[in-house]
């Protein structure tokens, strides 16, 4: 994270605008990736032009379960990052805390 702290004020704002913009792009990219993954798993026969009730159930469950997975990995990931930050601070204090 050191790159971010020592940026001048107006660049921090540009960074925040970049962050907000990328969130729009990230969620669209995640959406596109989720369709591709669940379509690949759930839709395998093309005798008809529209998805049947088994495919519909599989697609809906696949999307629901991916969102639940992402929420869960999000929590574990944040916990892990918080723990690493704590360890890094302790190490800094350990070395005479001159940071």
């Amino acid at each position, binding site marked *: 994270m050191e790159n971010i702290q020592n940026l001048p004020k107006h660049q921090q704002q540009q960074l925040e605008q970049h962050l907000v913009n990328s969130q729009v792009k990230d969620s669209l990219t995640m959406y596109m990736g989720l369709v591709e993954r669940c379509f690949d798993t759930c839709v395998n026969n*093309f005798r008809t032009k529209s998805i049947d009730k088994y495919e519909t159930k599989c697609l809906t469950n696949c*999307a629901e379960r991916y969102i639940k997975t992402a929420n869960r990995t999000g929590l574990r990931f944040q916990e892990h990052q918080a723990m690493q930050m704590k360890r890094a601070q302790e190490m800094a204090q350990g070395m005479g805390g001159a940071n």
Partner: protein
Amino acid sequence: MSFFGGGGAPQQPMQPDPLFAAQTEMEMYTVLFNKLTQSCFKKCASRKHKEPDLHLGEMSCIDRCVAKYMDSQELVGKVLQAANEKQAAQQMQMQQMQQAMGGA
């Protein structure tokens, strides 16, 4: 589901820049088109590649594959939207609870 979205709501939330949003929307059409082409090529065109043309069965498979891909796109979109709305509602509740307890 970028995990940055969670946590307290910023006072005056920064909006995405409109030109960027329009560019992204354009790019996503190309991403969608490329993904559906790759999926339908994988599912409909046999990997033996014996001749340069697609035979009849492969062509009608591709037409149906595009239709089913777009159905799936719409269906997954609805699931994601419902999940986002549920999450936004939960965040609102959390804020009201914090205010009710005199929190920030």
